Each structure stands twice: as C-alpha cells, then as structure tokens.
C-alpha cells in the first residue's frame, strides 16, 4: 500500500479531537458496566437483609433492628422498581437509583459513621497524592535509569547480575519492604518517625520513608520490564542505521533507543497517573497516613459497604480516565498516531 501514507493532511487536527471524543464516549458504557457490577455485587448477591444481619450480629437480632438498620442507610427501598410509586418515582426512589446511579453525580452517600463520603474523599486525596506522586516520579526515573544502565552493559556480567537482582527484588513481598524498612530506618537508625502524618513542610519527614520504600519495592519488576523494551528496540534496524552513521554508543542509546523505548513506558505510566489518587493500601495503613488507601482498608475491616462501593466506583472512573489519557498521550508521543 505504498503511496497511501501521504494523504489526508487537511483532516489531521480534526482527526485527533474526533479520536479523543470517541474514546471518551467509549468510556461511558464501561463506567455504566462497572456501576451495574457493583450494584449486583452489593445488593443482588446478598440482600440488604443479609448485610444487616451480619452487621448486627447473627444470633440475637430482631426484625425491628434490621428494619431500623436498613432505614438508617436508605436500604429499605425496593431494588430497581417500585410499583407503588407514581411516574418517575417508580424508578428514582429505589436502591439502584439512589445508591448506584447517584454515584455518577459523585453523590456517594454517607459512611457508617455518618460522615459524607464525598467530602471525606476530597479531604484524603491530598495525603494519598503526597506519597503516590513522588513514588511515581522518582520510581519512573530510577527504573528507566537502571534499565538503561543494564542495556548499556548488555551481554556482560553487569547486565546479568542486574537481571538476577531484579528478579530477586521482585520476589520479595511488598509487606517485607515495609516492615523491614520501618524496622531498619525508623527503629534501628531512628532517622525518621515510624509512622504518622503532618501537613505542610513538616510532612517531609513522614513521607521520606514511605516514598523510599515505594520506589525500592517497584524497581525489580519495572527495571526488568523496561530493559526488555529497550533491548527490543536496540535490535531494530534503525539502530543499526544510527551506528552506520558513526554515532557513539551513548548517542545511539539516548537519541534513538530511549526515544522509541519510552513511548510504551510513557503511555503505560500515564494510565497509572489518575489511580495515584487512590493511594496505596499497604503503605498508608502501615504508616498511618490519612489517605484514601487507609480509608479503604478501614472500610474493609469495618465492613462499611457504602465506602467500599464508592471506592470501587471511584477507582474504576479514575482507571477509565487513565485509559483516555493513554490514548491522548499516544497521539502526543508517537508521530505515527498523531499524524495519521
């Protein structure tokens, strides 16, 4: 199909925007699907009746107590359709509409402790980001550097040793990194506090260790994967062309290999950016950081269904935002996508 490549100059600008709008529209049914799955999981598999019974204790529970529990949380309505109501109210005054569909309007309802989930999420997103963002940025740079180093020394003992080290690092449980890090850095060396969180500049000393642990625990798998990506590039023919031009190995690596290898890395990373808001379950709960991760863990431990449901929806929505961002970043990073 030679000759087809050069056409279509006029449509370029409109093409990208059209493309993005299409991706956004495509995301909508996915979000609806997620909503339906969570609804089925939380209200159909087990009825509100069952949940109440479990929360109130199995043995001595009166029907009245169950009804009260349901009424307090608004679970006393029919699931999807109320024949006794009139007009739109047959649909709107139901659990599905009030508890599931309402999440599209970011109305998450109340947690079991009576607080508004939406404002709680807004409050906790900051601390989550304070850890997740540095981990993401520093981690990405570290992993790319380590991978490039291994590729530069490819087929030597440096590379082989690096790969073995990566496999060893990724074989260690995330729990170990946290527990060992807390023990060594905070307890033995007493460099930073073991856990806790503060606002403002004071936050730094609380954040140092969790960020460090977050970076270290990701290096193994990340660097190994990036190494494969770079190696795949380095065996391509355009790299041979670059060498035939008389470029040095470093010029080849940075100007040609890195530029092509970074495309899949960047787009995969962009997909993860929105999810940074969700924080890390483990890190936050170990370090006592009041973010969304620890919020989720607490909700799971207290079996607070409203919060878990909200976090599922929020996570999915952010994931889908990530998908759209990936598509956009592709058009930005790769001229083949941008211009075709």
């Amino acid at each position, binding site marked *: 199909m030679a000759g087809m490549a050069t056409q279509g100059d006029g449509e370029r600008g409109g093409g990208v925007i059209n493309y993005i709008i299409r991706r956004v529209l495509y995301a909508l*049914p*996915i*979000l609806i*699907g*997620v909503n339906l*799955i*969570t609804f089925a*999981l*939380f209200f159909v*598999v*087990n009825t509100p009746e*069952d*949940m109440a*019974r*479990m929360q109130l204790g*199995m043995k001595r529970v009166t029907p009245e107590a169950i009804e009260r529990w349901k009424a307090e949380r608004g679970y006393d309505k029919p699931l999807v359709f109320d024949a006794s109501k009139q007009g739109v109210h047959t649909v709107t005054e139901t659990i599905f509409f009030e508890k599931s569909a309402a999440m599209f309007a970011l109305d998450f309802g109340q947690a079991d402790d009576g607080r508004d989930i939406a404002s709680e999420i807004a409050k906790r997103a900051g601390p989550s980001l304070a850890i997740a963002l540095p981990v993401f940025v520093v981690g990405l740079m570290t992993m790319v550097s380590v991978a490039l180093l291994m590729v530069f020394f490819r087929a030597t003992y440096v590379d082989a040793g690096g790969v073995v080290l990566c*496999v*060893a690092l*990724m*074989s*260690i*449980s*995330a*729990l*170990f990194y946290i*527990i060992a890090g*807390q*023990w060594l850095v905070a*307890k033995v060396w007493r460099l930073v506090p073991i856990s806790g969180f503060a606002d403002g500049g004071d936050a730094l000393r609380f954040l140092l260790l969790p960020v460090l642990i977050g970076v270290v625990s990701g290096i193994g798998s990340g660097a190994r994967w990036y190494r494969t990506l770079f*190696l795949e590039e380095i*065996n391509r023919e355009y790299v041979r062309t670059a060498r035939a031009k008389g470029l040095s190995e470093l010029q080849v690596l940075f100007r040609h290999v890195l530029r092509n290898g970074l495309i899949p890395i960047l787009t995969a990373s962009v997909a993860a950016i929105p*999810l940074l808001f*969700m924080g890390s*379950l*483990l890190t936050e*709960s170990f370090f006592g950081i009041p973010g969304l991760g620890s919020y*989720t*863990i607490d909700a*799971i*431990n207290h*079996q607070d*269904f409203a919060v*878990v*449901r909200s*976090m*599922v929806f929020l*996570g*999915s929505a952010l*994931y*889908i935002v990530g*998908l759209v961002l990936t598509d956009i970043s592709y058009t930005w990073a790769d001229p083949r996508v941008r211009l075709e």
Partner: protein
Amino acid sequence: MSAFLGFKPALLWTDALLLLLVVAVLLVVRHIRRHEHLAAPWRKVALSRAGMVSATVLMVFATIGLLDSMHYRPELPREPGAPAGAVRYAVEMRSLLDHLLDPLPVQVETSYSAPLATQAFNKTSMESDSGTVRDYPRLKFGGAHLSDSNTQWATDISARVLRGTLWGLATGLAILLFAAFVRGPAQALSRLFRWLVGNGDDAVHCVAWTVLALSVLGGAVATLAQGYHVFGTDKVGQDVLYQILKSIRTALVIGTLTTLVTLPIGVVLGIAAGYFRGWIDDVIQYLYTTLNSIPGVLLIAAAVLMTQVFMDTHPEAFETVTERADFRLLFLCLILGITSWTGLARLLRGETLKLRELEYVQAAQAFGVSSAAIIGRHIVPNVMHIILISLVMDFSGLVLAEAVLSYVGVGVDPSMISFGTMINSARLEMAREPMVWWALAAAFVVMFVLVLAANLFADAVRDALDPRTRVRGVA
C-alpha cells in the same frame, strides 16, 4: 501414634481440584513427551541451570503441598460400651503431612519462644523451693530431653546437626542413585559420579548438588525438630516450622487453582474475540475492559466481603471450620481468577488476530474447514506457548498477592494457616522489646525462596518457549 490404626479419606474441594490439576499436568507432560516438536523447547528448559535448580526447589514445595492435600479423618478411640462394628471418626481432618510431622502439630508451648530455645521468651512467676521467682520457664517440649539445658544445649545441637547432615547426605545420595538407576540400570554408579563431578555448566550437575543441599538441609532441620522448635513458637505457642510447612499448601493452591478459572475463560474469550472479530470482539473487549477497570484489590475485597456475608448467614452449610476455610480459599481462587483472566485474554486476542491472517489458516478456510476445527487445530496449538508462559508467570504473583490480601483482611480465612495470616498476626511483634522476629523472618524467607524459584523457572520457560526471545540472539 495411635491415629493410624484406622482412618477415613476425606476430600476437600481444593484437594479434589488440586488432584485434577496434577492429573492434567501429567497428561500434558505425556502428550509433550510423545511429540518431538513440543518436547524440543522444553529440552532447552532442561539445559538452563537456573531453571532446573529452581524446578528442583519447586518440586520440594509441591511435594510438601501435595502431602498436605491428602486429608483423612482419624478413627476415634472406641468408647467403652459402644457396639463392636460402630467406628467413629474425628470431625477435624488431618493431612498426610500432619501425620508425618507428628508430634509437631500438638507440641504447643504456652507462648513465644525463640528458635531452638529451651526456655520461654517471657518471664513468668514460678513456685520454687525458695519461694516465688520470676524467671524464664523451661519449655514443655523444646529441649525437654535435656536435664541441664545450659551445659548440654550446644553439644546436643551440634550432634543433631551432624547426625541430620549425615542422614540428609545419605538420603540425597540414595535419591540420586535411584534417579541414575531409572535413567538406565547399567552404569548407574558411573552416571551418578558424572552428575556429581561434571563440569560447572551442566544443568544436571547443578540439580544433583541442589538435591544434596536440600537433603542435608532437610535432614538437619528434621533431626533438630525432633527436640526443638527450629523456628521458635508464636504467641499461642504454636511451632513456627509447622505453620510454615502448612502455609506452603495454601500458597500452592492459590497459585495453581486460580489458573483453573483463568485458563478456560481467558482462552475461550481471547481466541473467540480474535478469531471472530466483529460484534463478538466488541462484546468481549467491553467485558474485559470493564472488569479491568475495577481496581483488583477492591473487586476482590468487595467479593470477599460478600462471601463473608453469605457464609455468616448460612452457617449450616459448613460442617467444620476446615471446610469453611476451604470454601473461602476456593472462593478466593475463583475471584482471583475472575479478576486475572483479562491479561491472558488480551494477549491471546492479539495473537489470534495475527494468526487468523496467516496463510495456513487461509488454506484451511479454502478447504472449507469449520471455524471450530480451525481454532482447535491451528489456533490453539500455536498459542499454547503463550498460555503456558502466562501460567508460570502468574504463579509467583498470586503467591505474593495472597500475603497482601490476607494482610488486608480479604484473603484466606483467619483460621487457615498461610504466609499472609502468619505475617498479619506477627507484624505487631516487631514493636516488642526485645523483638520477636522469627515468625516474620521465617515466613518472609520461605516465601521469598518459593517466589524466587517460581520466577526463575518462569524465566527459563519463557526463554525457551517464546519465539521472540528465541530469535533475538540471531537477528
């Protein structure tokens, strides 16, 4: 030792499925051995030193896990006055591993004790001749055979280690000799000799020494365990070594049974999407994008919470705690499988899209071969390497995930021994002064060895099976 007088085999759900998996693996192995072109890449795995050593280590783990999966109900002692024919069996199940480890499971101390200790970790008030003193009490079982623990301990430990080492060495050599004999009765001894002194590059040589090393380690631990708590005891006095050995089965079940769920869904939907394209592809892609978009931990958490509700509201469905825990384990595998098939499906979809355009598929279409036959004959065999690679690659991830999930509280049942529950119950002990480190350390080290072995084996399998890594060197 009276338990083995009579017993009734008992089959948990996970036992049955594990058995099914073993049978399936054996059938696949037999099929591969019969077809030269299928066996060829596996022979490359057999040449990889790291791959074969890790496979040996994995075999040991698998053996422990399988022994722990053969459950039975011991016969209860006959009550006086009961009729002669009426045999009653215990409600709680035991496994073959429990039987082999006897009396380790029942040698429970009162609380913490350090590895190989003869005294408890905490002081208690004790009555003695000179009144009440606070001191470290002797353990009920750990080093109980020593009359004077201070003087005899070191010699006893050394003697046991030496004895165990010799035992292990003998056992290891016996195993190797047996293997050499199986390879060919003639010259079995010289073959064994070659294996042991062979040049350093030979994978068989490495495996032989791994077998010896593991046997020695096993021998030493076994002789020590007969008199001590090798890895100490936990808060309730339970032997940590015993818990570690029991955790292995849980990890293996999670790592392997999940694939029973992943595999059929991933393979069928992935290939169907790639082969039929059109609306079928759209629907399947929608399905896995939607499922993928729910953060894994949260979906698992939500599903496990809902199972919890179900189990709490239907207590009558489970006869014993073991069955209840087993149900939850099985369900965890199911939900892990449902969240993790999407990766496999996506890979297979992409590969099938490529394969369906290949000329041999078109040649089959020109012969009017049906879609089902084309998929069965041309597509599935040619994506098999992807399926196998993703299976072995997933295993280690699942073992690690179990620990995290159990820590978060949405993993296995708290009554089930696993790496996750061990870490969960031991993590607060790090804050104690002096620190109780042994349970955590043992759990992390054993889990690390298992996951590392799995990762290295997976790497060897991928290098051998993936055509892309195969040609990379030549291009």
